[in-house]
C-alpha cells in the first residue's frame, strides 16, 4: 500500500537495528472475506511498536497472525511470509507450540487460569519440563516483580488467581507470558478492559519490559500509543497506511487519513 514501509525497513537495516519479527505481503482471509490485504512490516527489537486504527481495520487480526493464533479459528487462512529470526514461521513445517514459547501473547480480557497465582505462572513451565522447585520459585518472584505485582500478592501466592482484581489479573497474565522468556510479546488491547489506575500500572510494566522484550501492542487508546510506543503503524481497512516513529505519526503524519484518525476525526 505504501512505500514508506519499505523505505523504513531499509533504514532500519542501514542503521544496523535488529529486527525481531517481520511480515512480507501477509494476507488474512476469514472465509471469503479478506481482512488483511498484504501487509509488510518489520518490528525493531527491544522497542514497543503500536498498531492503531479503527475497529475492523484488521490490526488485531494482524497481531494474532504473528504467533498464528488465527490457526484456531475455523475458516481462517493466512497467506504470505512471517519472518522470525530469518525463519518463515507461516509454514506447515513449523512446530507452532514451540514457536509460541518464543512469541508470547497477552489478551484483551485478563484470562488467568482457575488455578493458584503460583500455578498460573509455573503451569506451562512445568508442562514444558521445568521441575526444579527452586528455579520455579525464582521465576515466579522475578516475573511478578517485573509485572509490578509481587508486593500485592507475595503473601497469597497459593490462593486462587480468580480472586484478583482485573488489573492484577492482567498483570498476572503478563507475568505468566514473560515467565516463558519469550523474545516477543504480543499484546492485544491489554488495558482496554481496565480502569485508569490499572491501565497506568500495565503501561509502566510494559515500559520496564522493553529492555528485555520486543513488544507489539494493539491499542484503541491514542494517548497510550503516544505515551509508550517507539513506533506506530496505522491500520485502515486491512492495509497499513503509515508506519513510522510514533512522534512522527502523531506530530507530522504524511497522510491526511492518519492525521484525521490520530486527532480523533473518525474511528
Amino acid at each position: 500500500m505504501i512505500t514508506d514501509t519499505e523505505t523504513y525497513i531499509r533504514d532500519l537495516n542501514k542503521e544496523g537495528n535488529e529486527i525481531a519479527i517481520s511480515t512480507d505481503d501477509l494476507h488474512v482471509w476469514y472465509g471469503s472475506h479478506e481482512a488483511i490485504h498484504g501487509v509488510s512490516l518489520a518490528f525493531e527489537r527491544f522497542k514497543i511498536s503500536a498498531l492503531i486504527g479503527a475497529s475492523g481495520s484488521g490490526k488485531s487480526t494482524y497481531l494474532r497472525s504473528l504467533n498464528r493464533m488465527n490457526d484456531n479459528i475455523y475458516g481462517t487462512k493466512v497467506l504470505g511470509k512471517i519472518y522470525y529470526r530469518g525463519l518463515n514461521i507461516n509454514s506447515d513445517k513449523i512446530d507452532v507450540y514451540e514457536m509460541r514459547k518464543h512469541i508470547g501473547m497477552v489478551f484483551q480480557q485478563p484470562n488467568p487460569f482457575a488455578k493458584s497465582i503460583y500455578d498460573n505462572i509455573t503451569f506451562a513451565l512445568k508442562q514444558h519440563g521445568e521441575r526444579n522447585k527452586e528455579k520455579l520459585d525464582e521465576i515466579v518472584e522475578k516475573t511478578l516483580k517485573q509485572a509490578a505485582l509481587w508486593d500485592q500478592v507475595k503473601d497469597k501466592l497459593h490462593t486462587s488467581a480468580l480472586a484478583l482484581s482485573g488489573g492484577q489479573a492482567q498483570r498476572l497474565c503478563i507475568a505468566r507470558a514473560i515467565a516463558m522468556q519469550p523474545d516477543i510479546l504480543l499484546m492485544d488491547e491489554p488495558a482496554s478492559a481496565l480502569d485508569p489506575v490499572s491501565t497506568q500500572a500495565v503501561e509502566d510494566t510494559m515500559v520496564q519490559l522493553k529492555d528485555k522484550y520486543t513488544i507489539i501492542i494493539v491499542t484503541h487508546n491514542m494517548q497510550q500509543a503516544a505515551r509508550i510506543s517507539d513506533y506506530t503503524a496505522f491500520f485502515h481497512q486491512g492495509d497499513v497506511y503509515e508506519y513510522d516513529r510514533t512522534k512522527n505519526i502523531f506530530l507530522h503524519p504524511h497522510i491526511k487519513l492518519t492525521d484525521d484518525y490520530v486527532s480523533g476525526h473518525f474511528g
Partner: protein
Amino acid sequence: MNYKYSKTRRTQLIDRLAYKVFYVIAILIVLILAALLIYILVTGLPHISWHFLTGKSKPFQAGGGIGIQLFNSFYLLILTMLISVPISLGAGIWLSEYAKKNRLTNLIRTTIEILSSLPSVVVGLFGFILFVLQFNLGFSLLSGALALTIFSLPLLTTNVENALQTVHFTQREAGLALGLSRIETVLKIVVPAALPNIVTGMILAAGRVFGEAAALIYTAGQSAPAISFSNWNIFDLSSFLSPFRPAETLAVHIWKVNSEGLIPDASSVSAGASAVLIIAVLLFNFIARYLSNRIYQHMTGVKS
C-alpha cells in the same frame, strides 16, 4: 397526559400480576414436592430399622429386610459409573473441543438427544435382547450396568459438553499462547475449570441411575440371591463383588413387592424401601452441591 398516566398504571398492574402468578406457580411446585417427600418419609421412616436395612428379604413371610437390594443398588451404580463416566468424558470432550461443525457432528448430537428421550423400559427391553440374550450375559449386574450405561450416557455426555462450553474461549487461547498443545490445554486447563459442573452433573445422573427400575427389570433381574460378603472372588456367583450374578435393586424391589409380592407386609416394606431410596437420592443431590461448591471455592477462593 391522562392517557399516558393510565397506561403506566396498567403496565404496573400487569407487572405486579405477572409477578404474583409466577410466585404462586413456584410455591405450588415446592409444595407438591414437599408434600410428596413428607408423605414418603412419614409413611416409610417408622419401618426403617437396622434389621430392615441389613436383613435379607423374605419371599412369603413378613419381617423381611432390604440389605442385599440396598447393596446391589450401590454396587450397580458404581459399575455403571465405571463404564459410563470415561465414555461420556471422551465423547463430551470430543464434541466440545474437537468436533467440526458439520453434518456428522449434527447427526451425533441429534442421536444423543433421541437417546436421552428413550423411555427407560425400552432401554431395558433392548438391553434384555442384546446383553442378556445375544451376549449371553444372563440376568446379571453386568447386563444391568450396560443397560444403565445406555440410559445415562446421553445425560452424562451432554453434561460434560455443556460444562466444557461454559469455560470461556480465552482460557483455551491462554493455554495455546503459552506454547501448550491442544490436548494439554483441554485436559489440564479446560477440564479442570469445568470440573465443578462436570462433578455436579455426574452425581445428579447417579441419582437418576440409582432410582431407575424399568431398565433393570429385564437386565439385572428380579431376584436377589444370597451373597457372601467374605467371598472376594469376583468370578464366583456367590461373591458380593461378582458382576455376573442376578441382582434385584432397591427400586426394582419396590416395584416387585407392590406388583407381584406375596409377603403380607408388602405395603410397609415398600414404604420403608421408598423412604430409603428417596433419602439416598436426596443425599446425592446434597453431596453434588457440597462438592461443587468446595471445588469452586478451592479454585476461586470465593464463596459462591
